[in-house]
């Protein structure tokens, strides 16, 4: 069955190529932004791939000065004229992300005195934007630590309370079960922004305002409910006979839970922990309301986007730092999550 004629094959190929194009091209440009120097940011048309080197044209003047020309897409333009090595060094660092001592630059350029105007190519310092991000956003390193801790707290609270609720919902029959089920759905749907403001007042009363525990307590609100939903559907799937067999052989309920049920439910827990992690890791608005000095990395990057109109490439570098742990975490538990996704192969 399912023989395709040539036209159908062509249409499918076109659709899938368009999909790949739409996903990959923006990401390549984003990567290019992450490594772009200041002059490259105003370059048009934009390069698809990040450039590793920068080429400038140097014209020596009679009074010992050097005039630097740079081509940002529409021919060489004069950028700076100087004979001060410190100025040169700063200019190359800030504009081209090239970190070479000014004396070395002067030495190179002096060769142009004999040959006339010449082009010089230097390799860019690729991590320049990342270093700049940490240098400009002074609290970014503590923020990274805060993000990790807040995420761990969120996973801990959501998983311990949520899986307990999920287990009870799956294993017991009781009168209020339906109501609790619906309440969990409502809690999950409730806009978190809505409870952030009263939550701030509450946390101040508890002395938990501007703490990571306070943040995690808010992030856990939707995630406990979500974990309960995810795990209860898995716990139902784990046969009760298996648990009963274990108890017949002398294990008590707790041992059975720890040795039989929990390992079998591991995919559900892994998936839930991923959602908990992503909530805490990516949130900006709650962190904005609930923290003052203990900011998280996502918030710091969000603020960097808002304040810097020119240096958005530094914010881009910051957001790459934000993506990496999320990718690593997702990759580690991918196996279990794909089990949850009904074994979608990828």
């Amino acid at each position, binding site marked *: *069955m399912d023989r395709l004629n040539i036209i159908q094959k062509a249409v499918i190929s076109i*659709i899938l190529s368009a*999909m*790949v194009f739409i*996903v*990959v091209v*923006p*990401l390549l*440009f984003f990567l*290019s*932004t992450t490594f772009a120097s200041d002059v490259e940011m105003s*370059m048009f*048309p*934009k390069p*698809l791939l990040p450039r590793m080197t920068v080429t400038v044209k140097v014209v020596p003047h009679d009074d010992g000065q050097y005039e630097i020309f740079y081509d940002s897409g529409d021919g060489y333009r004069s950028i700076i004229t100087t004979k001060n090595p410190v100025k040169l060094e700063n200019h190359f660092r800030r504009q081209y992300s090239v970190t070479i001592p000014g004396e070395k630059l002067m030495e190179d350029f002096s060769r142009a005195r004999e040959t006339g105007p010449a082009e010089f190519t230097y390799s860019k310092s690729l991590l320049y934007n990342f270093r700049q991000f940490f240098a400009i956003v002074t609290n970014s390193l503590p923020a990274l630590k805060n993000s990790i801790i807040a995420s761990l707290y969120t996973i801990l609270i959501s998983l311990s309370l*949520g899986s*307990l609720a999920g287990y*009870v919902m*799956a294993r*017991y*029959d*009781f009168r*209020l079960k339906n109501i609790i*089920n619906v*309440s969990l759905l409502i809690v999950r*749907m*409730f*806009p978190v922004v*809505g409870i952030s*403001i*009263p*939550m701030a007042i*509450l946390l101040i009363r508890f002395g938990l305002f501007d703490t990571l525990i306070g943040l995690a307590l808010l992030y*856990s*609100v939707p995630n406990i409910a979500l974990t309960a939903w995810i795990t*209860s*559907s*898995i716990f*139902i*799937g784990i046969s009760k006979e298996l648990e009963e067999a274990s108890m017949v052989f002398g294990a008590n309920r707790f041992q059975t839970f720890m040795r039989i049920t929990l390992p079998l439910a591991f995919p559900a827990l892994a*998936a839930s922990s991923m959602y908990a992690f992503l909530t805490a*890791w*990516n949130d*900006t*608005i709650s962190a*904005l309301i609930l923290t003052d000095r203990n900011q998280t990395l996502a918030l710091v990057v969000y603020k960097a*986007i*808002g304040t810097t109109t020119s240096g958005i490439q530094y*914010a*881009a570098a*910051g*957001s*790459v730092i*934000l*993506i990496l742990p*999320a990718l690593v975490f997702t990759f580690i538990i991918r196996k279990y999550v794909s089990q949850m*996704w*009904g074994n979608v*192969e*990828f």
Partner: protein
Amino acid sequence: MDIHPSHFFIPKGGIHLREPGVSNAKRIMPYLLLLPVFIYYAVFWLAPVVSGIIEVFTDSSGRFTLFDNFDLMLQSDQFRQSVLNTAAFAAISVVLQYFLALMLAVLLNRKFKGAKLLTFVAMIPMAITPTAVAILWKTGLVKEGWINTVLLFFNIVEKPIVFLNAEGFMAVLLIILIDTWTVTPSVMIILLAGLQGMQKDLKEAAYTFGAGKWRIFTDITLPILKPSIITSVLLRLIAAIQVWAIAVMVLGYGKAPFLVERIAFYVDVVPGLGTSEKIAFTLSFTTTVIVLLVTVLYLKASKYKTRVGGNR
């Protein structure tokens, strides 16, 4: 990025037995076990929600009022626009994302060389954090951005377009497109899971009896996918009503006003004022009521019953 948990709502197998004649101790056992969760939600969810509702129905001096804060909200800047935008966003984005996700899922479900790799590529946007998505599109939408680079390269436009100047419905449309780029993969993966769990013999039987491809799609594939479609549409709808972050990070406050964007505006930009706090509370109350209404209407319309927790 909002990852969709709807696929977990597909009921897993397993039989739930009701034990006859349970003792008293056993009857209170589930409540006892749920006690920590109850306490947690009483303190960290119910208390903030109740104090939020109290804020909605009291004026700044603490006296009860039924409509004052709603009047404030109705007269607040860009309120009407934000309601219209949110409705347009939810309707258009959900339909568009579903159409694309379903098409991609059906195509990627075919067994051909490279299907796995393409599925992986299609899922990449899920892993990109919201701030990165915002920067990606912000650097694209400026006049010297990469979108104009691409458009000029393929000769689609002659002069660069200044996308960031978009206003009104065009701004909403931009946010819809960005949201679609980000969210479609997570919808697709749910549908793909549903398709891969489908039995092949059904399709083959229909094919043997002479059904065409379109007929197989509408009469077999879609009905089997229905449960996963219904739950994931619901979650998508709920998330769409609460859109805000991407609009603020790409366009800034007030360019494409949405309901939750307004809440963030009153909390983030003009905090401290008595009225702005009242408006923020009233807005989030209203948003929640809308979300609940939409959910109930949607579930009624699709005749769907929650199936998690063993009730069927």
